[in-house]
């Protein structure tokens, strides 16, 4: 993060109106270093300017948000992505997360909350919307799925504590409120969420791979 804590932001969205809206909402708290309205241009510009955080629209001409993630992360893993979408469909959300996004929020999010999410992602933490927390609880529900290929049991289920944290996030609690409710520090909450994110990206649970397979990403 450069410039005295002001994260450098890159906006990828095919709606100019929305980009303008985000710019206005985030205002001077961030440094917007570029914009793009389709995948190829976004990959080129991001690899050139190396922002701290990319606000990435899930639905994008030229291959969608996943195309951008695939074009940037192998070369510059330090760039962090926060997915933004109007869609709440699990296949969209899970797909971008598994492709490497560090969080997901809906476009209805308020400016203040978006700013908090950007800062969290910039600091290397994960950002879960209530909706995403719900998906993850659903996907990891029940015992380990049979027939998962890698067979790393650690990755294929959530710990009880992670479950509790996700449940509260799904109920609309902020990290701070989660920490207070469970009597743990906010840092611990963040590390639980990051660990869930890792499982979400690496697990081979059927419920997760199904969505990715449907989109021919695997």
């Amino acid at each position, binding site marked *: 993060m450069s410039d005295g804590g002001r994260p450098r932001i890159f906006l990828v969205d095919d709606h100019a109106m929305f980009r303008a809206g985000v710019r206005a909402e985030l205002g001077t708290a961030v440094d917007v270093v570029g914009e793009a309205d389709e995948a190829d241009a976004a990959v080129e510009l991001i690899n050139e300017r190396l922002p701290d955080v990319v606000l990435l629209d899930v639905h994008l001409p030229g291959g969608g948000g996943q195309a951008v993630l695939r074009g940037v992360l192998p070369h510059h893993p330090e760039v962090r992505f926060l997915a933004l979408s109007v869609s709440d469909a699990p296949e969209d959300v899970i797909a971008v997360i598994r492709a490497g996004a560090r969080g997901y929020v809906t476009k*209805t999010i308020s400016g203040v909350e978006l700013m908090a999410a950007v800062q969290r992602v910039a600091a290397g933490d994960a950002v879960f919307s*209530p*909706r995403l*927390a*719900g998906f993850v*609880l*659903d996907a990891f*529900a029940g015992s380990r799925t049979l027939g998962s290929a890698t067979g790393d049991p650690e990755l294929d289920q959530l710990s009880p504590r992670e479950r509790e944290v996700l*449940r509260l996030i*799904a*109920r*609309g*609690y902020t990290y701070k409120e989660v920490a207070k409710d469970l009597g743990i520090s906010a840092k611990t909450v963040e590390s639980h969420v990051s660990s869930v994110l890792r499982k979400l990206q690496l697990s081979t649970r059927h419920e997760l791979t199904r969505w990715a397979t449907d989109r021919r990403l695997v």
Partner: protein
Amino acid sequence: MPEAPAPPPIPEPSRGGERDRWRHESWAGPAGWRGHGHRGRRHHRLRGPIRRSRQTRVVAGVCGGVAEATGIDVTLVRIGFVLLSLGSGVGILVYALAWLLLPLEGESTTILSRAASDRRGIRLVLAVVPVLVLVQVVAGALHLGYLGSFSWPVFLAAAGAILIRRNASEAERVWINDDLLPMLHTDVDRRGRWALTIRISVGVALGLGGLLVLILGHPTGAALRPIAGSLLVVGAIVVVFGPWWLSLARDLIAERQARALAEERAQMAAHVHDSVLQTLALIQRSADDPQHVVRLARAQERELRSWLFDGRLPGTIGDEAATLTGGLDVLQRQVEADHGITVNVVVVGECQLSEGVRALIDAAREATVNAAKWSGAPQVSIYAEVESDTVAIYVRDRGRGFDPGAVPDDRQGIARSIRARMDRFGGSVAIRSAPGDGAEVGLSLPLDRSVR
């Protein structure tokens, strides 16, 4: 019996209080979680040790307790006990022992454990022993073997009755005095005393006659003897206890009708609140927008008509949804359309809409509408989760919040619609809110596996 046990002083809790289905913890209280939180949800379905049931009982709740602990239908258990009693009387003995040895639901000590420290009761029992000995001696002298063996169960029953009556808990004692003792109809008024005397005399005469026929009999008509004797004994029982049975049946029917009426009224109040009163409140709030007012009034009229003439309840999830997710979808659409706020719904798991789950969704709708109207927050979050044995819904807003302790108990919205709806299906409600800190309503419903 040389001395009748003095009845202990009885406080005056209302009899119905113990069986009151409408009792819930009061709404008022300190801020913070109340009721069952999601942590305590698991003990709903647990089948623990046998306890005598408070609700399902005719005499002491033993059959009800056995039925609850084993899952066998209570009627079958009762039939079993009656058959055992008719056969050899062993059923009665087992029942009396169970009464002594099983704690009442919600109590930790048994009557027997309390009786062990009841010196006066034990002295009373010991005082009956000489009577037993006397009877045994007389029976032995007169070679009446039947009388000798018959006096044992009578003695045990008397001893048991003394200990039970003296050591039953308050609630049970009230019930014994009010329901069991009037069986004998000893406290009827002057006019009824004659009838009582005649009734008992006839009963005793018939009973003795029956017993005599059974025991001694005539050498002739040997085949008819048992039948005639049994008939006489049965006749005696009917004459003595008949009027009590009739009055008991009458009371039972009246009580059932009153309860059905109260339940219907509560449901009606909840529905009227959900529809008509909600709309009236909305109309008041949008008094400066005539078009909106007209639209609201029209919609309400349609809904009310469909309720009155088609029997479709307003403010409930109709047939348009069959699952929890579907029902919450309907809720989301309706509340967003009616109140102009955003409702975010997150569902984990899925289940079919049973009557209980419908009530749960209706309660959640009520909570959502409340938040839409009073919290001032632009959006409300609903989180629903289906677990193996419960469904829970949390309705959360980030509005102005309130002090749960300051809401009057009789506020319709919360007291009736939400809590009563949940109570009817064994669910629970917990509210967390503080001024300036938003509010969250947690609803939890035990899930019947058979409807999943």
